């Protein structure tokens, strides 16, 4: 069976192979996505983000289980940081989702960031499309969860759930700039801990102060480990989707996301061109040398590089 068929038939191994190929920038995989792109668009893509230690994996696990009861097909992409020193990584989010592994209608994939800034793996976008074609009704993207870089997730997801925990008052202050704004739904996890309602109030206040919001995000208290508040959260996810569809916001978001993605892809190709060109003639090294010894300024250097690739 061809990979393409396997993907359409819901074969996990085929889907897994294709994700690997996308990670490797494999042309065959990209061609398959091109060909099957009209099969995408059915999945609700949900980003799960928030500071480390907030229990994002457990929450994702519980959301997936709740949606499985409605017979929905689920894809999960769990992202962990890659070590900048070794290029390796330990991807441990599956620990929280082990009993989902055997569910025929759930596909979980762990990814390292592999040096790509923004907390999202470079291949995430490709993997999301593959899971969409694969037939998933919901695709969860669980991010690394480190501060500002999480803003990137909005550019991939339809809905972003910010996962917070009680007693992170200072952290809220620290991350509010830019990051608070990306949450469509706020889930205060571990709400059985002291201070949960205080944290909820603080977040609500902060959200009320923000004036560039069309819709004030709901703030929910949940305790994922005890499966408390999950059904409500699922309801809010659905409300959010209804809102997005009715307000035409879904189209707007997806268009914006597409714009960002296209620019990223072009950017990447240009950089690859430069690197390729550089490989053949060692240009970059030479120019950098000249800039370093002050024979050449970096702006002229840029023009030279740009002109050289125009020739290609």
């Amino acid at each position, binding site marked *: 069976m061809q990979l393409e068929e396997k993907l359409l038939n819901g074969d996990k191994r085929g889907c897994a192979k294709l994700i690997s190929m996308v990670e490797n920038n494999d042309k065959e995989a990209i061609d398959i996505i091109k060909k099957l792109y009209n099969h995408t668009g059915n999945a609700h893509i949900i980003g799960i983000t928030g500071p480390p230690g907030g229990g994002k994996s*457990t929450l994702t696990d519980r959301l997936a289980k709740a949606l499985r009861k409605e017979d929905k097909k689920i894809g999960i992409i769990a992202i962990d940081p890659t070590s900048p020193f070794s290029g390796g990584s330990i991807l441990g989010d599956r*620990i929280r989702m082990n009993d989902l592994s055997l569910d025929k209608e759930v596909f979980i994939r762990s990814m390292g960031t592999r040096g790509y800034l923004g907390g999202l793996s470079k291949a995430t976008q490709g993997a999301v499309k593959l899971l969409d074609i694969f037939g998933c009704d919901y695709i969860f993207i669980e991010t690394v969860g480190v501060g500002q870089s999480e803003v990137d997730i909005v550019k991939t997801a339809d809905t972003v759930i910010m996962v917070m925990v009680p*007693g992170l008052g200072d952290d809220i202050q620290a991350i509010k700039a830019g990051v608070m704004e990306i949450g469509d739904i706020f889930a205060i996890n571990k709400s059985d*801990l002291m201070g949960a309602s205080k944290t909820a109030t603080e977040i609500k206040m902060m959200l009320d102060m923000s004036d560039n919001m069309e819709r004030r995000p709901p703030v929910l208290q949940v305790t994922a480990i*005890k499966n408390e508040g999950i059904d409500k959260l699922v309801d809010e996810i659905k409300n959010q989707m209804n809102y997005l569809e009715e307000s035409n916001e879904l189209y707007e978001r997806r268009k914006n996301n597409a714009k960002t993605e296209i620019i990223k892809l072009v950017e990447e190709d240009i950089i690859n061109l430069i690197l390729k060109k550089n490989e053949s003639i060692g240009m970059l090294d030479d120019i950098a040398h000249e800039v370093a010894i002050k024979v050449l300024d970096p702006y002229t250097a840029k023009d030279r590089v740009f002109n050289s690739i125009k020739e290609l």
Partner: protein
Amino acid sequence: MYDKEKLDQIKKSKKDWEEKVVNKTLEKYPERLEEFKTGSGDEIDRLYTPEDIEDIDYKEDLGYPGKYPYTRGAQPTMYRGRLWTMRMYAGFATAEESNKRYKYLIEQGSKGLSVAFDLPTQIGYDSDHDLSAGEVGKVGVAIDSLADMEILFDGIPLDKVSTSMTINAPASVLLAMYIAVGEKQGVSSDKLRGTIQNDILKEYIARGTYIFPTEPSMRLITDIFDYCSKHVPKWNTISISGYHIREAGSTAAQEVGFTLADGIAYVDAAIKTGLDVDAFAPRLSFFFNAHNDLLEEVAKFRAARRLWAKIMKERFKAKSEASMRLKFHTQTGGSTLTAQQPDNNIVRVAIQTLAAVLGGTQSLHTNSKDEALALPTEDSVRIALRTQQIVAHESGVTNTVDPLAGSYYIEAKTNEIEQEAMKYINKIDELGGAPRAIDIGYIQQEIMDSAYIHQKEVEGDKRIVVGVNKYKIEEEPPSDLLKVDPAVENLQKKKLDDLRAKRDNNAVMEKLENLGKACSSDENVMPYILDAVKAYATLGEICGVMREIFGEYEQSVRL
């Protein structure tokens, strides 16, 4: 401990010695290593002098054995009065086979039993459960019901031995079985002596045989505290364990810090349920590891005793001296044993035995030389027991109490470990206590960091392990290892089938239902577990009821 003038003279003369004598020697004969480190990786000085213990106040910090702060020992006369309990951890295959091993150990001079259960028993599954496949009888004895327990202690009068059971998540069930066996022997529960490990927090941290989430687990533990204080008063209701924390790779100071932090959590939980601290604290016991760095280990045991005494007195306002006195069991360090040249392990165990005894342990298990390869054979267990007996009767270290006290190094190291351990406790307090620190993976990660550093040092030859990275030889694989017959699994399954056919299943159902109701209420579950056990409900059935109501723990890993 010294007057200021004397101390100044000592400081001055030490400086002289360093400048004139040491430096000259170093020029000609540099030291072997650039830096010297303890087994835990702490830097260690060339020489310790009174300068290093100048802040010690003898009466306050050391005092007398059997008196606060117990630095010098838990009892006034220590081993002059009674030797430690030589307690060999054993159990494998079926109850019948383990029963034979226990009788052999008692014959050989062992004074207390220590029961090892297989993993399905420790995790509350019957031998016929899917997840038990391949594990039945492997690391300990398989116990599915009271029927197995009756065989396990057949011919062993429970009023004559003290029995330690390494059981945690289902501790209340195994304790109930023990009480029921006692009853059948005509021994009332107030005469039973022994210990259950019952330390769930270190299972979350390091050992992995957890079942239920933190909250219900803590409730089961405090239920046991409460029940035993009324009905089994001589029973040690918990053995708060640093052993496995150390095995997982912690340093000596982390072993003390994390273990006592767990201890604090148990005391907090018990007080919260309304128990009086002095009603249960005297029944708390501890369990530590003995590694190869003899002096560091001795200091560790002393530091643990002193720190716990202070915590009980100052933090928990205990009034009874017995509440402040830390008593502990020791096991030699399993992770220090090598699969290479296994005979060398006998020597390691001997050094570790000395450390435990010089540190004032109340009981001791010595590992056997072949345990990096398989379960120990009867012969290797005997050598391990003899090691204790030689230290007890031939080494002479038992003739005076706390003989290493007053050593500049030992006292300085005792202080250092106590301070470092206290730092960890403070950090854990900041995070909201041990359960929370475990939940976010803090303790596990600290231990893992230490373990990884250790591994890298061994691989980089910065730490010599004889036979592993130095003095290696070509050797034949050992041939006389103990093998558990895979047929044990089927045997246990058959016993279960027979039991289920024979017992009054309606009575079992009823007792299990009652247990379920108790679990959902605030009532103490112990009496209900005891009822179920006596009706021959299986361990898996009892734990199954609790699983349904309490849910299951989810591991927290931060790598």
